[in-house]
């Protein structure tokens, strides 16, 4: 196996046994990127020089003190990085260079991880295919004619293609889990408030949450150990004790109570996807878990409510892009109103404009009550549904998405269908719960993901169930062909 194919823990073992150098690891990853990224198009910005410099700086043993010393990681381009361009895949921020690192990034840096680069996404994290990047679409390593999902599509594609072992993504309605599912990797969205949002460019502040995409559950746990925990700079970050997530990496799940909602196995489901997830549930039963069917009656309302709340918050969050202090600016305008309108119209893509306008509308006088307030009330009902189920169960399992990855361009004009991709993931964000997507099989050569949802701050149990499944299956060992022969 090449170094770039290994996970963080395997690389760590090799480093500890002094079988490889940090430089070799970084070079292997960079070489892989140079080989395949022309096809995958996962990276917006590669920070090769700094990565090699950092690797060199860690050549002596005395200089090494951290949990991920010398291990490569990449970031969705929604995380602010000091001195390194952060674009959110938007023309608006094409040349934006933050003067600060996001808290999650600082923590990875403090543990001496090595940042490789910034990954493609749907513009401002709005989308489910990464086709809505202002720069270029990213491709699915399993079928280059298909989308990797989104909005953290660059993360999932890069991890699947072996360009980087882990990446941080962000998830507002499924943006980590859906692309992880499409690309056959692990995508972990922690509870709202578990990982600091400070320095993560906001889409919808009440639902945005940073998380991890990796090839292995154990690498998610390792990264979570670093990025999770209270941050005084984020008032919504929970001051709740963080467990050692690696301690949950044990395959015994006997007696665990797992619910599966009736509603997630009906409506418009791809039969193959449905059957693979039902098979996975059987697997859990074999492993000693107790499986029962439950109902989440308000689940179907999550998506319409999400398309009110998300855009409403976005309309305010994206108002700061006005051409005054940073970002794209129309220099020709001779008055402020034109400067605003011209700069913003040139800087934002159609989907971003659509959501800003939608959000502006649902908050405006005469509409607030019927749209925004209504959606916030429905949000409570959705949360109550989950609370009800969690009175009797440890976890909830659903498919991550109703289908496998679709063709590039297939849903570009049909945004409502595109929105439908998030039907199983959105309710989780509405309720602020932790959830993971892990590979549970293939349909026509394309990966299928299973979503495991836990109670607020019960990340450990989610990781435990995911790890147990992974240890008892082999899907994660199958690598994409990148347009060539499957290996």
């Amino acid at each position, binding site marked *: 196996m090449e170094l770039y194919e290994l996970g963080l823990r395997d690389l760590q073992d090799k480093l500890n046994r002094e079988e490889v150098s940090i430089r070799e690891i970084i070079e292997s990853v960079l070489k892989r990127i140079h080989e395949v990224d022309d096809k995958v198009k996962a990276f917006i910005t590669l920070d090769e020089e700094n990565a090699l410099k950092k690797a060199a700086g860690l050549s002596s043993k005395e200089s090494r003190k951290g949990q991920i010393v010398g291990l490569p990681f990449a970031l969705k381009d929604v995380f602010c990085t000091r001195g390194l361009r952060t674009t959110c895949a938007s023309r608006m921020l094409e040349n934006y260079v933050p003067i600060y690192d996001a808290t999650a990034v600082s923590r990875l840096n403090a543990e001496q991880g090595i940042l490789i680069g910034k990954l493609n996404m749907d513009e401002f994290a709005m989308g489910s295919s990464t086709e809505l990047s202002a720069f270029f679409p990213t491709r699915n390593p399993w079928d280059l004619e298909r989308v990797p999902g989104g909005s953290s599509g660059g993360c999932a594609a890069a991890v699947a293609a072996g360009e980087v072992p882990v990446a941080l993504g962000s998830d507002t309605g499924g943006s980590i889990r859906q692309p992880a599912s499409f690309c056959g990797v692990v995508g972990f969205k922690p509870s709202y408030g578990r990982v600091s949002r400070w320095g993560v460019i906001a889409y919808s502040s009440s639902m945005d949450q940073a998380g991890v995409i990796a090839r292995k559950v154990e690498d998610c746990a390792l990264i979570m150990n670093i990025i999770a925990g209270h941050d005084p700079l984020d008032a919504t970050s929970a001051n709740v004790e963080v467990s050692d997530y690696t301690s949950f990496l044990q395959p015994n799940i006997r007696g665990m109570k797992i619910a599966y909602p009736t509603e997630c196995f009906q409506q418009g489901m791809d039969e193959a996807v449905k059957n693979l997830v039902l098979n996975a549930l059987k697997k859990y039963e074999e492993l000693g878990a107790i499986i029962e069917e439950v109902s989440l009656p308000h689940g179907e309302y999550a998506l319409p409510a999400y398309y009110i709340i998300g855009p409403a918050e976005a309309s305010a969050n994206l108002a700061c892009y006005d051409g005054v202090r940073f970002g794209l600016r129309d220099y020709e305008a001779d008055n402020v109103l034109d400067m605003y309108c011209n700069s913003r119209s040139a800087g934002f893509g159609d989907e971003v404009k659509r959501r800003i306008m*939608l959000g502006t509308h649902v908050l405006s006088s005469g509409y607030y009550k019927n749209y925004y307030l209504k959606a916030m009330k*429905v949000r409570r009902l959705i949360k109550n549904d989950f609370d009800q189920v969690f009175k009797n169960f440890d976890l909830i399992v659903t498919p991550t998405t109703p289908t496998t990855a679709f063709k590039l361009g297939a849903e570009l004009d049909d945004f409502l269908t595109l929105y439908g991709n998030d039907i199983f993931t959105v309710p989780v964000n509405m309720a602020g719960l932790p959830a993971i997507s892990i590979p549970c099989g293939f349909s026509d050569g394309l990966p299928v993901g299973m979503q495991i949802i836990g109670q607020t701050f019960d990340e450990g149990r989610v990781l435990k169930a995911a790890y147990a499944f992974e240890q008892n299956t082999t899907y994660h060992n199958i690598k994409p062909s990148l347009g060539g022969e499957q290996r």
Partner: protein
Amino acid sequence: MALTIKKVEDIALMARLNLKEEEKEDFAQQLSLILDYTNSLHNIDTDNVEPLIHILPIYNVFRDDVVSPSSPRDEILLNGPLLEDGQYKVPKIM
């Protein structure tokens, strides 16, 4: 209910966006579609439901009233598209 072109123009102005004529029609149609899609919410009775504003039961998150140094001016102005005398320059207001 379909949004009129006029309504779309009002929204766009509020959101500080310029729309071309054909865009106005497209957005009118698309936004109407999404709004229709959200109408199912009105199938649920929420009269006695409190809106869920903050998902976590967190209160009173404060910082102490302590000053720490501001950003160096040349650093924070670095991304400024147009500057003069250490200030951001914008065209006329009215």
